[in-house]
Each structure stands twice: as structure tokens, then as C-alpha cells.
């Protein structure tokens, strides 16, 4: 009767709506990344190579602090070579982070950058960064990981200090699989 046809139309419309919202839930992920790029939300820095800028603004100096954080799974010694430097916006700065694998076994690490204040994130350009690719180290091996950064001249006036932090995560493959398998619990 007439109702069935109407129900059919209503229900298909609503089911489609529900499926679309399910897709929208997943679409929030790329939307969030785009949103972070524009506003520098959460100090998320783009992991793509920036080309060096030409103009250097000598009218002001910006303090760039470099900080190192080990995530819980990371028994490496991880420290910036120089923890603080005064830079003119546009000037390229060459420095490095020291990493030493203190355990006996082979490990691979991934560094994740973050900038504070998050407002300054879009203006910190990484020309070369050890966070672009994974960093393997054999047991007790040590290495200097290069980092070349510059602060874009369009940095807003009221920002004087930028803190660039790197968090080191362990992504050694077999650990990742084993970790994922039994859903590690910490009581």
C-alpha cells in the first residue's frame, strides 16, 4: 500500500544519510590535517621539504629553542647539539641532534616534530630534517642527525621565541607487530 512506498523512500534516504555521516567521520581525518596546516593547530609541522627563502630580515632576532623528548618506548640518548640559537627570520641554520642506541639490539626510530607556540608552526621551514625518514641504529651505535631550518620572514611580530621539539618513537617493525597483536597493557 502507499505507506510501504513512502517508508521505502524515507528509509533509503536515512540509511544513505547514516552511511554518509560514517564516511564524514573518516573524512574528518584529512580535514583535520588541512586545518592543522593552515592554523598550525597543535604545532603540527608539515613533514615536507621547504626550499630555502632568499630574503633575510635582519631587523629582529628570534630565539629558536631546540628540545628533545624520548617517548616511553625509546631507551636512546637523544639530545640537540645546541639547545638555543638567535636567528634572523629568513636565515638558514645548520645544526644537528645526537642519538645513541643504548640497548644491545638493532632499533629503528621515527622523530616527530612539534612547535610551540602553535601559531608559529606554519612559519618554521625545515630544509633538511632527520624527521623526514626513519633512523635505524645498531646496538650501542651513535650518530649525528643533521637538521637545517629557517624561520620565514612573515613570522608575526609578537612572536619572539619558538620552541622546536622532537619526540623520538620506536618503530622497530617486529615490535610494532607484536605490540599491535596483544594490545599492550600497563597495570
Amino acid at each position, binding site marked *: 500500500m502507499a505507506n510501504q512506498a513512502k517508508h521505502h523512500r524515507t528509509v533509503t534516504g*536515512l540509511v544513505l544519510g547514516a552511511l554518509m*555521516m*560514517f564516511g564524514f567521520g573518516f573524512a574528518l581525518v584529512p580535514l583535520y590535517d588541512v586545518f592543522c596546516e593552515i592554523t598550525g593547530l597543535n604545532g*603540527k609541522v608539515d*613533514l615536507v621539504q621547504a626550499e630555502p627563502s632568499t630574503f633575510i630580515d635582519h631587523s629582529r632576532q628570534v630565539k629558536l629553542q631546540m628540545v628533545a623528548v624520548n617517548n616511553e618506548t625509546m631507551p636512546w640518548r637523544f639530545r640537540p647539539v645546541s639547545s638555543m640559537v638567535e636567528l634572523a627570520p629568513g636565515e638558514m641554520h645548520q645544526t644537528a641532534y645526537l642519538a645513541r642506541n643504548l640497548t644491545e639490539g638493532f632499533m629503528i626510530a*621515527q622523530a616527530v616534530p612539534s612547535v610551540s607556540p602553535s601559531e608559529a608552526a606554519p612559519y618554521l621551514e625545515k630544509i633538511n630534517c632527520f624527521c623526514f625518514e626513519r633512523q635505524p641504529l645498531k646496538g650501542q651505535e651513535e650518530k649525528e642527525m643533521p637538521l637545517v631550518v629557517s624561520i620565514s620572514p612573515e613570522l608575526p611580530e609578537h612572536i619572539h621565541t619558538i620552541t622546536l621539539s622532537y619526540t623520538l618513537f620506536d618503530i622497530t617493525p617486529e615490535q*610494532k607487530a607484536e605490540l599491535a597483536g596483544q594490545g599492550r*597493557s600497563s597495570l
Partner: protein
Amino acid sequence: MNTSVAVSHHHGPASGISRWLFTTNHKDIGTLYLWFSFLMFLTGGCMALLIRAELFQPGLQLIQPDFFNQMTTMHGLIMVFGAVMPAFVGLANWMIPLMVGAPDMALPRMNNWSFWILPFAFAMMISTLFMDGGAPNFGWTFYAPLSTTYAPPSVTFFIFAVHMMGISSIMGAINIIATILNLRAPGMTMMKLPLFVWTWLITAFLLIAVMPVLAGVVTMMLMDIHFGTSFFDAAGGGDPVLFQHVFWFFGHPEVYIMILPAFGIVSEIIPTFARKKLFGYASMVYATASIAVLSFVVWAHHMFTVGLPLAGELFFMFATMLIAVPTGVKVFNWVATMFRGSMTFETPMLFALAFVVLFTIGGFSGLMLAIAPVDFQYHDTYFVVAHFHYVLVPGAVFAIMAGAYYWLPKWCGNYYNETMGKVHFWCNFIGVNITFFPMHFIGLAGMPRRIPDYALQFADFNAIATVGAFIFGFSQLIFLYNVISCIRNSKPASDRVWEGSHGLEWTVASPAPYHSFSEPPQVK
């Protein structure tokens, strides 16, 4: 509830268990939802009593911290998804067909299925308490990475349980929208819909819009835990704050899903007992619709301290303050309905009045929380716990109880015992306030949320809150006794039941026949 049923010409209800397993009758399914919700309310309530018992005194007396976290998590999940939402769906299943003059819900078989998913979803969820590693212990808001990398192994069962609840809610919502839009009796135009039907129609659209997002976020968790993706794991380029954004994008409309039907119930009850039409019916309908739409743009006021940029904090502060207006003014409509009415104070009216007063107090603390700079002191303290318990316990739960007392004579054909109803109300009213009002003070004084033990300066108010919790908890047994004795043997009810009752549901007999409105009624 074995409703004594008037003889109906063709097939009445089947007998025995198969009546309840295979029922496609909106009245039976409503009854199933209501009893299931009451069982979950008692289960979640026991967990709350365990939490309050531990917090009675400083020091660890009863349970260990990790089990305490499991209790707070399960208490939240069971109360939100097991007690409040199914209760509203139960009331909707019972009353919407009667109110719009429809013979039954649009899709009866799907209606049965959306109920029978819930007992299995909650059986699985509660069984996580007995798994090694314990039940989920990361709060009902299950923030990553505590809920992904650092979760107990039972988190996977939690994820599938949430999937099942989501599917049940979506199917329920589809059923309600199809019934309201397509099965209205002739003459029952959209303009004449009772407000309970309007609020449920809008809530159903909210459900269909946000439950899939919740399903999405738990699916992302599942992939992070088992399939090596890193949506929320910073190591692989993910971001734990992304989880909070997606969760609260679902979360804030969810809190409106839990309160709009309560607005509908109270807007049915107050006019009946004030013997006066609802004040500003059109404004109420439009305001409810606008609340639903605006509830999608304010989610990050739950995240003021996570490190949003200044522009984000300001945006969400302004948007949250602005949408407080349409929500707040509805309270004035109820007061205006009462003004110059001719009121009597039976139990449903008492619960409705307590709803208006205490929900408004919860609304005021919500307004205080909207001010971002001050929220830095309020966030994740017991002030927030007091806020959402004031809008949920005297808010949603009191409205559900008001609805139950209001329609119980229609469901089972007898009047409940009025004095026992009043005793139940006063125990609840006193218990709720003794439990949750001191939480404002200890929250302001600096006690964080979700801690099993606290510093000495919070001791006295915590003791009072625990006493209140036990009063409130055990007074529900009065309600249980009253309902059972009302079903069994008490004074038969007239068809109109209340002197001031209005609406199609009062035109059918009491108790409502198994099949009502087989021929659509004529609505003048």
C-alpha cells in the same frame, strides 16, 4: 509487564517467552526497552555506589585504583548508552504511535531487532569486567592513547559493543522518523504534533547524523590497535587531539540527544497539571530545531585546555555562549505555562517541576563552563562532574521517571500509589541534591575528576556526597515496588487518567489495547 489486554478481534499477543522474543508490537517493544533501561540504571547505579563508597573517606579502603577506573568508565557507558537512551527510545516506542494516531511503528520487525541487539551488546560490555587485564579503564570518553596503545585487551570487546549500540540507535531513529513522517492520522498535520513527538523527531535526525561518527571513531581505534594504522598514534603521523575532535563532534550532539526528549516529556506534563496550553508552542518547536543544528558547531568547548590556538578558543567560546540562549529560554516557556494556571501536584508534576529547577542549575553551571579562561580552572574537576550530573540526573532521569508515572496508568490500566510516588520523589530530590551539590564546592576547591583518593581538604563534602548517593540509590527500589504493584493490582484508571490530559493517547482505553488505531482516528 504482562499488560492485561482487552480482547482484540484478530490475534492478541502470543503467550510466554515467545511473545517477548518475536514481538513486533510497539507497546511490547516499548516495555522491553523500559525494563532493560531500568535494569541498566540499577547496574550503573551499583557501580556509582561503589565509586562513592570508595570516595567516602580519604585513603584506599575498598577497591584498587585500576578497578576504580574501570568502575567510572563502565558507570558512564552503562548510564549513557544503557539507561538514558534506551529509556527515551522505550517511551518513544510506546507513545509516538499513540500520539500521532498510527497503528504501530513504520518498520515493526526492524523495531524488534533494534531492541534485541542491546542486551547482547551490554552483556558483552559487562563481561569485559571478568576478562584478564580488566574492563576498559580509560573513562567513558575513551581518549587515545590511553584507550588505544595503553588499553587492556578487553578494549576490542568494548569497541564491538559500541558498534552494536550505535546500530541499534540508528535503526531506532530511522523507525521513529518513518513513523512520524508517514503514519500520521489524517488531520494530525505537522502543525498539531505534540511536543514530545517534535523533540523525538529532531533527536532522531541528530542520532542518524552522529552515531555513525561514533562508529567511525571506534573503528579508527580498532584499526590503530589491531591493524597497525596510526590515526591517533603520534609515532606514525597521527594525533591524539584528532581523537578528541572527532569524539566531541559526536559528543556534543549526543548530550542534546539525551536532553531533547526530556524537554518533550516535560512540555507534555506541565500543561496537563497546570491545566493550561503550553506557552509559545511554535517557539519551542523552532528553538529545538535550531539547538539541534547549532549543536554541531560548539564541540571544542570540551577541549579548552588541550592547546587550541587562540582563534579556536575564542570561536568556540562565542559559539557556545550564543547557543546557550535558545536552550535557556525554553525554561521561561515552562514557567510561563505554569503562570496563572490551575495546578495540582501529582508525582509526574513534582518530577517535572524538579526537572525545571535543577536542570536550570545544571544549565547555569554549563554557562559558567562556557567562559574559556575560567574553564581553565573548572576543566576536568568535580565542578564539571556536578554540571553534567545536574543536567543528566535531575534532567534526563527525572524526566524519564516523570514520563513513566504520567503514562503508567495508560500502559497498565491502573493508578500507581500516589503517596508512594511522592515518597519516591522526595527521596530522589533530597538524594540528588545532597549527592551532587557538594560536588560544585570540591570541584571549585581543586579536586580533579576520576581520582580514587583525594587530599584532606575535600574530605567533608565527599562524605556528604556519598551519603546522598546511597539515599538516591536505594530510593529507586520504592519506584520498582510502586511500578510492580501498579501492574498487579491497584485502582483501575479511567481512559483520560488525568483531569487535564490532552492528546490522542488519552482517547484510547486504559490499558491501551494491544492493537490501537487499527483504523486511523479522525483528528479535528
